[in-house]
């Protein structure tokens, strides 16, 4: 059994604490289970649901980037398929 950690209920990715092989059932610490669709290295992220190109990626309950291509539920989320969105600093001022 492979494990992954879900950090926030809002998140659509979890962090694998062991390497996962396609077909593995990944047990999510924080809730649920998902079938791994491709090999995922240790400490990398698994998509918990289908993520479409342009969708936001959530970890720690915050946005960590945007998908540059469609990602399957159980797919590998990495720097190859997500990217950082420029900040809007002016809107953050109080």
């Amino acid at each position, binding site marked *: 059994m492979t494990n992954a950690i879900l950090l926030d209920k809002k998140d659509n990715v979890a962090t694998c604490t062991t390497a996962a092989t396609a077909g593995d059932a990944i047990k999510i610490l924080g809730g649920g289970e998902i079938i791994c669709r491709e090999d995922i290295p*240790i400490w990398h992220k698994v998509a918990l649901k289908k993520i479409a190109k342009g969708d936001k990626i959530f970890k720690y309950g915050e946005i960590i980037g945007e998908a540059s291509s469609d990602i399957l539920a159980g797919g590998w989320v990495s720097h190859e398929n997500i990217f950082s*969105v420029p*900040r809007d600093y002016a809107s953050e001022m*109080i």
Partner: protein
Amino acid sequence: MNFWGYKRADGRAGIRNHVLILPTCACGSETARIVASQVRGAVNIIFNTGCSDVQANTDMSQKILTGFACNPNVFGVVIIGLGCETVPHAKLRDKIKSMTSKPVVSFGIQEEGGTLKTIEKAVRAARDLAAEAGLQQKELCDISELLLGIECGGSDATSGIASNPAVGELSDKLVDLGASTLMSESIEWIGGEHVLAKRAATPELHNKIIRICADYEAHLKAAGQDCRAGQPTPGNKFGGLSTIDEKSLGCIRKGGTRPIVEVLEQATRPTRRGAIVMDTAGYDISSITSMVAAGCNAIIFTTGRGTPTGNAIVPVLKVTANAQTYSWMEDNIDVDLSGIIAGELTIADAGDLLLKKIHDVCNGRLTKAEAYGFSDIAVDHVCRFV
């Protein structure tokens, strides 16, 4: 809580009692190294700036040199200059003397007639300072005299999930005991700056945190550069961190949850006690250099992928929550926090463990990098040498 430290005339407390051999510029660095190698109790740094610089770079170099000399872990200073650098040894010596009452002497290589003559005089001076330093007794100091630098480097996904929250817990405990903690690496606030800014004690400090990130990006853009090209690093990506935002949201957790009472410019001494942040590069060695110049007397450093780094003046205690990294690089890592990932160690217990480890370091226990005599340094730069 108390620790056994060296009380300085300015009221601060050192946890080490080094004689610092301080070059004014790159040209004095090798001579300084040889002088330090001849005297037990002396440490040196290699300095890569100090000449042929625009004013802003000179200002940064001077903040680092004077900050190092004034650091409470330093008993006294032997300056080694060349003679034609931007700020020559006598001028640097006078500047340091105006900032601290500790003993400071200086020599110039051109003035003395070469390296060997300089080494002879500087070794005698360093020997005398080291002899005197040996007489200074440790005294009980209140933990409020601790200014702990909080750093991360070679991060992977375990850093944000486990070791950084554990250090955040340590930071909260120290602040509650009256001590101060200093988190830097403002490039690694980007993407999480809105979360970090919520900890600011005032609206002014909130906006200062946001502005630092905006200004950093604008500064790089003016030179045609983008921080997202260098952050995350290749090692971070290999370790599961995909964007700067993901890295930052993990990084900022090492600062804990207490209100941020001061937001500092790089390499500046704090004026407040409590949780403090400082604007520095995300390059860990450069960030530590600025924290030492700001007066940190100890540094805790989280890593995922493993790093050997150490500083000549301030002990660097390295911790990881990556079990494989700890077992593979145990020679470089002081504390194993992998029990957090394994579900065997709570973040609260890890905070208690780190408090004990840092307390030991304050009382004189050597960190691994310190025992090896490591002396890494990187002075931040505004633009090219001239």
